[in-house]
């Protein structure tokens, strides 16, 4: 019986070690690709760098620096729309990074349409001032930490009669994680859906999904667009910073980010 128990424990241990090993191999492979991509970028072989960066992105790595580097290569290969989308993605994960801000501003100055990657709605705008300062990951962690802190304090207050006051007023502390949770939701609904027009001659925006609908306006390459919903009949519903809405051919929009396939 003892032997059987030992054999079982060994098997479980081996399986766990194997899983960890395969994860390490995968991480090592990604690192090699990223090193090659950086080398290609240094040599000026930006198409190669793009290919390698996109390979890593397709494998599921979400990293703001990665999108930032990808945006540089896209810009150097004169793909302004993709560069804008990549920098917007980088800003999502590195909101306080000065390099990302500078490059995004630079690319913005090169596009024909003077549009901002933010919505015209005043509520969103006011909230986004604060929300944009943090990543979603940071907000989630902050929400988690404060929740744990407030819970612990309240628990201690309830359990220990000496610090009964903590138990009595600790409940008010739960407002903080609730607020942070709300910001996470805002971030979830607002931030990750910004893309950019990648079609060099500009994209025609229709009143509905398809060319049979009324042509509303045309967006030039690089114009930032907020994706308001899911793709329908190869068209994406969009909104731009001045409040105009419409549908644009999905193939003409560049988008990078978690949760959705890169276009």
């Amino acid at each position, binding site marked *: 019986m003892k032997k059987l128990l030992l054999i079982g424990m060994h098997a479980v241990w081996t399986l766990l070690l194997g899983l960890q090993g395969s994860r390490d191999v995968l991480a090592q492979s990604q690192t090699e690709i990223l090193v090659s991509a950086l080398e290609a*970028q240094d040599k000026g072989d930006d198409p190669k760098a793009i290919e390698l960066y996109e390979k890593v992105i397709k494998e599921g790595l979400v990293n703001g620096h990665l999108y930032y580097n990808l945006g540089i290569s896209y810009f150097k290969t004169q793909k302004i729309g993709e560069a804008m989308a990549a920098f917007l993605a980088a800003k999502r994960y590195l909101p306080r990074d000065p390099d990302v801000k*500078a490059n995004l501003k630079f690319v913005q100055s090169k596009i024909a349409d003077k549009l901002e990657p933010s919505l015209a709605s005043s509520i969103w705008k006011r909230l986004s001032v604060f929300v944009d300062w943090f*990543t979603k990951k940071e907000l989630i962690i902050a929400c988690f930490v404060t929740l*744990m802190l407030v819970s612990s304090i309240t*628990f201690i207050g309830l359990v220990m009669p000496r610090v009964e006051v903590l138990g009595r007023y600790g409940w008010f502390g739960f407002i903080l994680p609730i607020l942070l949770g709300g910001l996470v939701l805002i971030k979830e609904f607002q931030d990750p859906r910004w893309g950019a027009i990648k079609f*060099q001659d500009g994209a025609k925006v229709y009143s509905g999904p398809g060319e049979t609908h009324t042509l509303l306006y045309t967006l030039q390459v690089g114009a930032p667009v907020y994706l308001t919903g899911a793709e329908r009949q190869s068209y994406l519903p969009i909104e731009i910073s001045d409040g105009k809405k419409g549908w644009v051919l999905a193939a003409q929009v560049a988008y990078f980010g978690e949760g959705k396939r890169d276009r």
Partner: protein
Amino acid sequence: MPQMISKLILGFWVMVWSAALSAGTLTAELDRTEGPIEEPFVLTITIEGNAASALDLPKIENLQFYQRGSSQQHSIMNGKISKRQIFTILVQAEKPGVFTIPSLKMEIDGKPESSLPLTLRVGTGGSAPSQTNPKTGDPGEAGVDDSTQGSSGDLENQQVQAFKNLEKTGGVFVIRQCSPTSVYVGQQIICNVRIYHPGNFNSGQKVPENSPEFRRFMPEGEKRFNQVINGRRFGVIEVTEIFVPLKDGEKVLPSFTLDAQVVSWEHRKNPLDKFFDRFGGGAFDFDFSFPDTKVIRLTHPENKTEIKPLPKAGQPPQFKGIVGTFDLSASINKTQVVAGDTVTITLSLSGKGVLDTALEPQLGLDPSIKQYADKPEYREKIDRTAGVESQKTFKIALVPSKQGNYVIGQVAVPIFDPQSGQYRVLSHDLGTLVVTPGQAEEKLYALGKVAEPSKQAVKEQGKDLFGPHEIALLGGSHTLGLKAIQAMAAVSLMGLASPLLALVWMGRRRRKEGDIAGSRRSAAHRHFKAKTKTALLHLEGGRCEEGLSLLYRGFKEFLGDLANTQGAAMTLKEIEEFLKQRSFPEETLKKLVHLLEKIERVEFSGQTPDKEVALRWLQELETLAHGVAS
């Protein structure tokens, strides 16, 4: 005196006759009675007086009437207004023969009037000699004698030649000056035609004359001025003709021929002359001069011109016969287009020369670009001095079917410039047309079925971008994985649950503590009840003092059990405080304290109360104890 009387009588008669003369007249005259079929006759109809109806010309088979003008004169004679109308009508026979124009009838001044019938003989072409005017004796067709026609361009020479024939033409003559006299095929020749007249030129009808060797343009408007030649004053009407030769060689320009209506004043014999002569008419100096209109065919000396062929040397292969001084402008409405969309190229030739026959320039484009030429727009301005200036605009719609960069390059239009005598190639660079994939192709790119071509529209090299971030930063994930989120959610739930669990635990603990206190209270109450029973036995046995003492101690022990203290040692003050803390009703508390004081007084004073009173006290204390226990 007798002369005076005779003149008065004569004046009276004149007045009477003038009244008679005021009756209207209708006359019809032909310029000649015979002539060839190609030369129209001129019929002049004169109406003197007020006609009741309009002139109605008869309808004669094979004879056509064309009214060419009319004039009207009013004169006042002896206080009466007389009216005179002259109609000039061209009579054209459709075939040779003898025609009779019947008597014309009209009601004039209320009386029927009629003209004499007229007969005219029309011969075959050239068979009928030019007849003398039946009225004046002047030739019907007059002009500068062929033998005297000089070479083109020499104004003075032409004027000298024309002066020789002034008598025949009623003083009217035509001179034409053309320049240049040596041109290339397609080059413009501008001719100024001057009609000189001594003031008697009424109107003119240009005889059409076409030539297969020249194109002819006539700008609108005319120039009028006066000129003195050889001491004679002439009114001059100057018109301009522009010729564009189509064939080379020594050519004579088509002539300018004019059927001019020339007015001549003639002294007619007056029917009253005899009457006036008979009565010493010298006293009445009447001038009966009447205007007469003649149609004279005028022409000018021929203008000989040397037409040179376009030189073969240096002729560009794409030359399509455009001759003139031109400029080329070209534009393209967009240089970037989606495959399948339309681009419009506009080519415009403009300048001095005739472009109406100019052909569309050829664009050497890729066969994948379809071309659709629009109908060219042509504008022409004919100026008296500058000649013909024209503009021809070609619009060509291009529809590229495939993506790519297409060099349109130079659009070239070769022309021959007659000013320099050389060929020139007008050109304009239209650059490159960048064709991006259409939506169908774009979808293929999106699906990865077709490799997206690299684009070159943006020239930025990213010099102002900040550089890439280092490898150490690229590794970690900036997002939370599902497992991490699940773990955090689980921990969060636990964290959130912990104070709640603590709350539950606290509640249970307090309830438990409450239960202990309650059981203690019940036990104390039970103990008190037992003592009460014993006290009751004492009281019923007549041992009131013992019974009340037992009841008093039992109650204090009961309170001591509740307060977790030694009840026997509790004073009344302490009992009162304890029960106040337990929120015991104040009224009941007063009753209790008062009762306890009475029992205590019995115990310490030795005054034994009645059995009845003692039993009532016991009952009251038992009730109050029950209240404290609950």
